[in-house]
């Protein structure tokens, strides 16, 4: 395959994974690979990344696809020259095994001389000393022996990874390492030193895991071909991850992405119409423009008025039906409060409580969420969502604080358990406030089915928006003006 074919396949796959690669960027990448030889794999990777990936959140997706498409060309697949004896032996044995076993592992090949315990022992030694080359060789070896890969078997890489790691007993490796380290140390380690050692070992084990993973991938690619492999590895980009189903790691990246978004939200809400409103005289600009009139300031210029600070009220459902979304909601509220000075936040299930103080900007986010979950008084009767009651109480207690500058953001699925809707509250809110928006984490097709009454509430708001992932949230912020 020529480089050109490979590149176009690679770029097609990037696009399939959702990365916005434009034509000019494609051409840039082609220019770039002319300058950097493919043999220098790291530099090659960064060159491609610099031209094709324009957002850090896409880096992971890029890296995965890069590995799949270019990993077979890396230096790992040439026999390394500077091997220690033990490793050279391992290498040779592995090569033999590969020849014998037709690429498929499991037979053990010429590695019968080493028991699994011995391999685990060697691994521990390598981890202990941070011996990179050895770790790499062992990763290869253990995939060979333990993963039990069979050609053409439609199993994902994670299955093989799990099998390999289980056989190596990697979960207990950390404890064992710490134990051994303690024995080795001449004197008692202080708590700090121990902690540092632990972090060091953790990162080495993580590195080893990645080696194993990469090795499995390499073999799968060899077996199934790059295209098929890339397809199975395709994951949604951070902005497409659904809030409702985000795992912990994805939540973490969502959290990072929220910061710029709330800033944008702040800017949008703060924006005033620039035309027709005048601030104080802008002397500099007036003199500048007076030139057209021969130095006579005939056309006075005025400064734009300072944008006023937006006031925001966030009212969020944190009941069980939107539990995953609620966590995200709280993160959003937290981020918003960092940007707006005049923001008040409320959470409800069937009762409602103000939680503004929990989110005061100097508080740690997990503490704040913990406090909301434990201290906020949101249960009135049974802890099942009752929007109607929550809204009524809200109106009674805080309704008077809504003024024409206030924007109200309602977050929830409007699943009311067939209670009274009290949608008149929303109507009043809209009358008294500036805008009322509703963000719904459910797919649009579920709206107004079962006990969802988002339509009834929605008719009184300035807009109901589907908000299942960052992209949609971003689109909502974009639309605000």
């Amino acid at each position: 395959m020529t480089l050109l074919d490979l590149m176009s396949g690679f770029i097609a796959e990037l696009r399939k994974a959702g990365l916005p690669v434009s034509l000019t960027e494609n051409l840039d990448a082609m220019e770039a690979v002319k300058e950097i030889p493919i043999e220098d794999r790291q530099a090659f990777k960064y060159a491609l990344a610099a031209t094709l990936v324009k957002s850090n959140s896409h880096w992971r997706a890029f890296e995965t696809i890069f590995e799949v498409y270019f990993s077979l060309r890396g230096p790992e697949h040439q026999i390394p020259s500077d091997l220690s004896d033990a490793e050279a032996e391992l290498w040779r044995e592995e090569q033999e095994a590969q020849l014998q076993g037709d690429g498929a592992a499991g037979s053990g090949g010429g590695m019968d001389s080493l028991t699994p315990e011995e391999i685990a022992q060697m691994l521990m030694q390598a981890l202990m000393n941070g011996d990179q080359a050895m770790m790499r060789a062992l990763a290869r070896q253990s995939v060979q022996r333990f993963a039990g890969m069979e050609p053409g078997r439609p199993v994902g890489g994670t299955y093989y990874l799990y099998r390999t790691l289980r056989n190596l007993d990697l979960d207990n490796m950390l404890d064992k390492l710490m134990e051994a380290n303690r024995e080795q140390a001449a004197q008692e380690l202080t708590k700090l030193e121990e902690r540092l050692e632990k972090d060091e070992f953790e990162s080495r084990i993580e590195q080893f895991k990645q080696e194993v993973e990469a090795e499995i991938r390499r073999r799968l690619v060899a077996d199934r071909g790059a295209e098929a492999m890339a397809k199975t590895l395709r994951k949604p980009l951070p902005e497409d991850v659904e809030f409702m189903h985000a795992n912990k790691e994805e939540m973490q990246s969502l959290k990072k992405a929220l910061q710029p978004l709330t800033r944008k939200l702040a800017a949008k809400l703060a924006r005033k119409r620039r035309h027709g409103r005048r601030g104080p005289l802008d002397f500099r600009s007036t003199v500048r423009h007076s030139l057209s009139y021969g130095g006579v300031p005939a056309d006075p210029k005025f400064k734009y008025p300072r944008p006023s600070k937006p006031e925001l009220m966030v009212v969020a459902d944190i009941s069980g039906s939107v539990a995953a979304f609620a966590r995200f909601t709280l993160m959003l509220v937290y981020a918003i409060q960092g940007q707006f000075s005049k923001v008040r936040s409320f959470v409800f299930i069937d009762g409602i409580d103000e939680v503004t103080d929990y989110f005061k900007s100097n508080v740690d986010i997990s503490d704040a969420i913990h406090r909301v979950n434990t201290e906020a008084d949101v249960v009135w009767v049974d802890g099942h969502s009752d929007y109607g009651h929550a809204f009524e109480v809200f109106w009674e207690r805080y309704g008077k604080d809504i003024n024409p500058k206030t924007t109200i953001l309602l977050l929830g699925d409007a699943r009311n358990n067939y209670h009274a809707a009290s949608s008149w509250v929303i109507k009043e809110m809209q009358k008294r406030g500036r805008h009322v928006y509703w963000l719904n984490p459910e797919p649009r097709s579920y709206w107004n089915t079962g006990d969802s009454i988002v339509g009834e509430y929605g008719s009184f708001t300035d807009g109901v928006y589907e908000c299942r992932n960052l992209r949609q949230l971003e689109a909502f912020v974009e639309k605000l003006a």
Partner: protein
Amino acid sequence: MENRFESVEQVRDGLKKVHYLADDGIAGVVFLAQRLGKPILVEGPAGTGKTQLAKSVAEMLNARLIRLQCYEGLDESKALYEWNYKKQLLRIQADKTSDSWSQVHDDIFSEEFLLTRPLLEAISSPDPVVLLIDEVDRVEIETEALLLEILSEYQVSIPELGTIVAKQIPMVFLTSNNTRELSEALKRRCLFLHVDYPDMEREKEIVMTKVPDITQNLADQIARIVRSIRQLDLKKAPSVSETLDWARTLMLMGIENIDAQEAKDTLHILLKYQTDITKAAKELSVDK
């Protein structure tokens, strides 16, 4: 261009000579930027050496560094060029009697009355320059458009004068703290470089280069502690510059070997939020 880079290694070594330790990614992108004649958009957390990269490249190339600090409200009269209206006024008034109108008219819109601002200065300079557009994410999205012409064509169009084309193609660095998403048009014109916190080995090297006389042992300890702290879920993780400050402090205090107490006492140099300090202090002294 006379001092063209030959290889990625050359860039890395060159940067090392001016005390900037570049990893593969950084050196590769800088090399590529010069070869392709494209600007680099550098993004990453605060304090990871984004601005320093531009400065170091300038130093390495022996080029003048022209810096445009972006802020909200930046406009073309501060970024590109402005007519020197005071001088123009004087010119009109000085010659009120003698010159014909058309002559004055041609005269006051000549280069003599043009005040060059950083962007125009960068492309009209005859010597090699490095242009640094700092914190480009601070300007409004509409103002970004100002940069597009200069970034893709290396030219500036002035209605009264015509187009000024660059005499030489400068190296351009744009830095961004990612407080907002930059426009597609801008991103498309640049090479993208994400600079993250360095890994432990590199951080150790950075400490060793930047803090003279530090012992290997201390640098190693510092790098390891900082790495552990960065793994915590903090409001603001310590940046490289804070690591360096911390290293210098420890040197001044004459500490050779950090113990938990000393680490705790000096944490406020690494971390800037009280909640973060409390958290880190707890984590460092208590083994889970």
